[in-house]
């Protein structure tokens, strides 16, 4: 097998540089992928620690550990760090590692920009985190930063927040451009668009979404900056501005953003289910069409986050219907996954366990999403813990589980070592129980009437909040265990074969394990 990928170009006969400069100057897609993945893991742990502070405060009614002011800073930073620091860079890291290997390309199309788009990220998050130590504290207006709470009434650190969002946006846009250019120009001969692995498809669509909406986010924060420092009144009613305009702009970015965080997961899960069912994916082309329709629909549903701002009836109806429509392509994907498993020959290694949990729990999140789309009912759900439960079901056992599944699935290819299957399964079960104990009760708490972003609550919410906190700590500790498993695998372990998994298909499994520093110096032929 490995003979196929042996490189015979002299100028390619070098391995990685040594020491720190290897990582600083690298333009290698595998190195950059690794950097992204470790960075996102670090952010995941920091954001997770903040979640522990939040849950600890909510363990019982009454203020115990933090003050409301600091509590608001925690929910804000937790949300921003998990979304922009945890999930998004993890997917970019996976794209870096996998897209070139899956399409038979030697590297990303724009390697130096690749380096830049990663290395500005640590600065963005350093700035964001340093705001914790500034006068007036860190941003405290929620990850949705609605004006005028985030403008006229914001702490001075909001300016640093704006700057860091700009950097994150620039990084995402560069990453997205790189992915698109790579996929469009560097596929191996014979790999038509409709032969591309689904992960590549999912990222192609994600990258277009990113390019479409990150500039909108940049626009929103720039208008905030103008309002705060240059006397404009975009969002200031007293000056003739419109605070609701902010929400329209934010959610025009925000809803596609939630699909940016789930489309790559769809790709990953498709590969894993196919491999461990030992059966070709059911309905490949409908999978592609489903992703495309989800992406397009995601531009016309944004105001379902704003049903209570007082829109005209016609607008409420339109956004309700459009949102409900998204359930159709989403359903198609779920049915296809199940049809792939049907009459397969299934084994349940750790990646498959995570993928199965993904299908079930993501679907639960989809159900609550459908309920939220029903406008009259949303008047009761909106801004309560029911919404918190919904988006954590789609983000934690959705996006995050898919990332963990991907790590278990591809780490033998990355490191050359098999992870410890017993530990992997233990990690899965701890996470699975933890996530459900944490978030399922939040449906109850929300329906019973507890609003979100509350540091303290009435007594009838006490019991289930306590359960949720216990689950959160179980989930939190399990992720430290995951860190241990990953380090152990990278350090050593049973050697992986090139194919790694019996049912694995695709170009990345034709190269040696660990994948050599340079792969596909000469393009493979795909038929």
């Amino acid at each position, binding site marked *: 097998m490995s003979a196929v990928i042996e490189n015979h170009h002299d100028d390619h006969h070098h391995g990685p540089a040594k020491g720190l400069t290897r990582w600083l100057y690298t333009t290698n897609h595998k190195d950059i992928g690794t950097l992204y993945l470790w960075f996102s893991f670090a952010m995941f742990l920091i954001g997770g620690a903040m979640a522990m502070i939040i849950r600890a405060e909510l363990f019982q009614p009454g203020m115990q550990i933090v003050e*409301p002011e600091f509590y608001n800073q925690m929910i804000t930073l937790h949300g921003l760090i998990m979304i922009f620091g945890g999930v998004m860079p993890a997917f970019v890291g996976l794209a870096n590692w996998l897209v070139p290997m899956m399409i038979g390309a030697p590297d990303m199309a724009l390697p130096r920009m690749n380096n830049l788009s990663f290395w500005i990220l640590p600065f963005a998050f350093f700035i964001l985190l340093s705001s914790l130590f500034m006068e007036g504290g860190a941003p405290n207006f929620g990850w949705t930063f609605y004006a005028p709470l985030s403008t006229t009434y914001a702490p001075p650190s909001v300016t640093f927040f704006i700057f860091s969002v700009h950097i994150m946006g620039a990084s995402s846009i560069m990453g997205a451009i790189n992915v698109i250019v790579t996929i469009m120009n560097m596929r191996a001969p014979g790999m038509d668009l409709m032969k591309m692995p689904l992960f590549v498809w999912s990222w192609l669509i994600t990258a277009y979404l990113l390019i479409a909406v990150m500039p909108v986010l940049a626009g929103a924060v720039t208008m905030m900056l103008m309002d705060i420092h240059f006397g404009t009144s975009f969002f200031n009613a007293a000056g003739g501005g419109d605070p609701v305009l902010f929400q329209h702009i934010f959610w025009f970015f925000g809803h596609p953003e939630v699909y940016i965080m789930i489309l790559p997961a769809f790709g990953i899960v498709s590969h894993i289910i196919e491999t461990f069912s030992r059966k070709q994916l059911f309905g490949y082309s409908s999978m592609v069409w489903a992703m495309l329709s989800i992406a397009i629909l995601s531009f016309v549903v944004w105001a379902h986050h704003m049903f*209570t701002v007082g829109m005209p009836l016609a607008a409420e109806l339109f956004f309700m219907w459009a949102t409900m429509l998204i359930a159709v392509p989403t359903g198609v994907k779920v049915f296809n996954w199940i049809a792939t498993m049907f009459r397969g020959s299934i084994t349940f290694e750790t990646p498959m366990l995570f993928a199965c949990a993904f299908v079930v729990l993501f679907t639960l999140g989809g159900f609550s999403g459908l309920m939220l789309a029903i406008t009259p*009912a949303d008047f009761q759900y909106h801004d309560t813990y029911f919404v918190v439960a919904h988006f954590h079901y789609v983000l934690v056992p959705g996006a995050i589980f898919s990332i963990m599944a991907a790590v278990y699935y591809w780490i033998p290819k990355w490191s050359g070592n098999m992870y410890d299957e017993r530990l992997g399964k233990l990690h899965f079960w701890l996470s699975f129980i933890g996530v459900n104990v944490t978030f399922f009760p939040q449906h109850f708490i929300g329906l019973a009437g507890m609003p979100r972003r509350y540091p303290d609550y009435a007594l009838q919410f006490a019991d289930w909040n306590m359960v949720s906190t216990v689950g959160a700590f179980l989930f939190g500790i399990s992720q430290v265990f995951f860190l241990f498993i990953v380090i152990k695998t990278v350090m050593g372990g049973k050697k992986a074969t090139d194919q790694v998994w019996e049912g694995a298909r695709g170009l990345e499994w034709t190269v040696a394990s660990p994948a050599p520093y340079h792969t596909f110096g000469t393009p493979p032929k795909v038929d």
Partner: protein
Amino acid sequence: MLSNYTNKLTGFLLTLSLFTNPAKADWFALNMTEGATAISEEVFNLHMLIFWICVAIGVVVFSVMFYSMFAHTKKKNPVAATFHESTKVEIAWTVIPFLILIAMAVPASKTLTKMYDDTAGDVNIQVTGFQWKWQYRYLEDGVSFFSNLSTDMDEIYNLVPKGENYLQEVDEAVVIPVGKKVRFLITANDVIHSWWVPAFAIKQDAIPGFVNTAWTKVDKVGTYRGKCTELCGKNHGFMPIVVKVVEQDEYDLWVSDKKEAAFKLAELTEKEWTTAELVERGESVYATNCVACHQVNGQGITGIFPALAGSDIVLNDKPRNIEILMEGVQGAAMNSFDYLSEVELASVITYTRQSWGNAEKGDGEIVSPKDIVDYKKPKI
């Protein structure tokens, strides 16, 4: 909201020992309320309808999945089937969900249309969100008051046991008559808030510069509790809503009482006040309106809220001091307090000018309700 660390520590220990057993534990608080109005009941039924449809879909879909997971393992089925598409099946599972969605959309659209009726009510009340309290103004009767959280700080900081309505009680509830159409005109003074009363299925954002409407017709006399549901700063979790629904005659009585109280207040404005009287009254006004930012000791919070103790304006600039309270400071969290009564304004300003050693350091001038009345007179 400020507590020192010993305070917190004892609070924490007390929680662990004495009060770990909240009086009103509730494992059964699981579902949405049916509420107290025709609309809220309709919303509840809609919620349950969609819920059961989702359960039904879930049962079907997951049964197939779990069946595969058990029956189609490598052990039981060593060789996988090879099918990987079927146009018929794929059309079926696109069309059927679409039809189910239409079945949901029809009743949902009907209910929504019913909720959108913004003709005038029998009683019209303007609801204004403030950081961090609600103001209610009865448009017909001119009655107007603020509604503040009345839960004791000591309960919040676990120093005493929590009462039954912990965080769901206010100093003055909004009162409405039973069986009448009541319309709420909802807006805000500073940031965005959201006025939510689950029993009426009303959740409407309170947005500065905009007026949103919502209406209700409550069938049952009773006390209904709600909350602010849009993050509005530090005390977002501490500005509850209490609505008392009463019989019409009781309502009329309440309105005339409120009017009489307003009249008495006007008399108070005329009276000659001594410094001591003003300071005494000002202390409580300060406690409800200013401590959140300027703190009990007048020291503020470095970097965000300036200290009033030793502030030049408070010490020596009485006109500017009044002006700041009346007009607020453009572009800052310091809002206009012109909605307070003349007595309240005069007393709180006097209080800040007399406390924390300010009287000794500055001119020590007091502000009387008449000064405020003068300020309000049109300037020539």
